[in-house]
């Protein structure tokens, strides 16, 4: 089966063959013989040429975070045809704006801007309280506040649109 792994530093086609814990993976032109065991949910034991690795794989919004040894990698894995369909579609919406979405569930404790406000990069837009910490969210660019979709005191879910900026 063919996959495409997307990392911060590149895109790798990967082919997997095998079953029952023994696999042959082809990464680019390298071939890896892997003896893999799922030892607990998300905790993999990989024996590769006698070297023992334990990898933790945590799903994080469609990508996976892999902790192995002292390294942490964020990797999106897609079945190859799905990757092709996705990347052939249009690029990111290019209206020159920034949509701030809630990265985690929480409660809005303070909204510092209103529609029409001019903001500079780094200005505080709002404050979300989650897990007893107040987290300030700042503008990633200079622009004008087009929309404010939340108010102080409101509970929000991860992914909710909070503020829309326009250049």
């Amino acid at each position, binding site marked *: *089966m063919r*996959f495409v*792994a997307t*990392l911060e530093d590149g895109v*790798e086609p*990967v082919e*997997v063959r*095998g*079953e*029952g*814990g023994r*696999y042959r*993976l082809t*990464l680019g032109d390298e071939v*890896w013989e*892997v003896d893999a*065991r*799922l*030892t*607990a*949910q*998300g*905790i*993999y034991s*990989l024996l*590769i040429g006698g070297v023992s*690795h*334990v*990898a*933790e794989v*945590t799903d994080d919004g469609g990508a*996976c*975070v*892999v*902790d*192995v*040894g*002292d*390294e*942490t*990698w*964020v*990797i999106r*894995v*897609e*079945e190859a045809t799905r990757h092709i369909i996705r990347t052939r579609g249009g690029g990111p919406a290019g209206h020159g704006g920034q949509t701030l979405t809630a*990265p*985690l*569930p929480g409660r809005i*404790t*303070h909204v510092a801007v209103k529609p029409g406000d001019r903001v500079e990069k780094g200005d*505080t837009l709002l*404050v979300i*309280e*989650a*897990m*007893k*910490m*107040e*987290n300030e969210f700042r503008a990633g660019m200079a622009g004008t506040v087009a929309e404010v979709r939340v108010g102080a005191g409101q509970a929000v879910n991860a992914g909710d649109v909070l503020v829309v900026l326009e250049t």
Partner: protein
Amino acid sequence: MKLAKVLIANRGEIAVRVIRACREQGITPVAVFSEADREALHVLMADEAYPIGPAPATESYLRIDRLVATAKAAGADAVHPGYGFLAENAAFAEACAAAGLVFIGPPPAALRAMGDKTAARRLARTLGVPMVPGTLEPVASDDAARAAAAEIGYPLMLKAALGGGGKGMRLVRAAGDLAGALRAARSEAAGAFGDSAVYLERYVSEPRHIEVQVLADAHGHVVHLGERECSIQRRHQKLVEESPSPCVDPALRARMGEAACRMAKAAGYVSAGTIEFLVDPDRNFYFLEMNARLQVEHPVTEMVTGIDLVREQLRIAAGEPLGYAQADVVARGAAIECRINAEDPFGGWLPSPGTITGLRAATGPWVRDDSGVYEGCTVSRFYDTLLAKLVVWGADREAAIARMARALGEYKVVGVRTTIPVLAQIVAHEDFRAGRLSTHFLDRILPGLTAARGRLRSVAIIAAVLAEYERLGHHTLPPPAPAATDAWRMAFRPGAGGGRR
């Protein structure tokens, strides 16, 4: 009197810690839980557990009326408040006393004297304990704060009068930032401690945060158990603590310990408490505040002194004398604690609530895991992010550092992001290894810290691809043995387990 049944008015790892001490003393532990915590570890481990309200702490763990009523209904004779929540709330201690319950902590008067940070500063001034300049009283208004700030000078610190653990604390660099910082500090203080009062203090550059553990019984005996170095902090939240401090020699330890005991005595303090000091680069120390409770980082003191602080709290609450003097307290070796928080250290340190799908804690020689979670449990967004405290002991600091690096490598958590990768980088850092610490250590090194990436790239890709292969229905990996995931359940409550969700 003998304590027979203790209600623990807390949750998470500290509730588990107190339950363990109770069990070892033959005391029946009683847990309380919010609606979000029905399946929390402390509920599973206690002999009895009672609901106290909805998930927000203000409607459950901060509800004095419900906690006291629950303790009475359960037939408890004492209440242990843990840390945070109501641990330093004199009204709670008084409500317990009024209901005939022993409050396991200082008497209400000492709580008012020491727990209220401004009152503690007045006491320190009276006793001639050195102090950083600042307001002795909480500031009543923004105008009062502006006036006081102009006198103290910038940069300065805002601190919650009833605070601790970094909540309600803000560094203000310039006058223009004061109003925003006041609002944030008051709101955080109100949410965390039920009181929004804050005070101002001058900011000392490159300080170390070093605190002294004291134990006082109800018969006037006070001893100190040496110091903890807690300089490794981020946004005033400690991340790594150790005992002894690499910068404290026996002479300085004796002076700081003497000052700490003097303050505890003068405040009529009883139980375990901590006097926090700032130590400047010239090794002058300044009283910062007293934490009238058990500290999160108490285990490092336990590891070097061999004294179980929660056991001592229970004994002292029962009216027993300490039974030992200062000369009997001997520290040996070095201990380090790392806080494993559900935060994404490479993603702006955002909290990472979720379900812990996979968990394997570090074990082995001289490793202690004070945890409040188990595999399959949910990390709620309602409470703080501390999952577990990993503590090690070594014959000396170098051995303890090597052991901590080893233990962090063994600790596996899947399902939520944790501070483990950044903790591993901290203990490997040359400044940490050399003991060159200040409270700015983390701020200084964090911008340069990224997820380590190098030779294991291909291995990481293999793991990610196999996980996706598995997820797509190719169940070719041998599944985990069911016994492994249920081991925790059998470990402490044989026969008590229900079905897994």
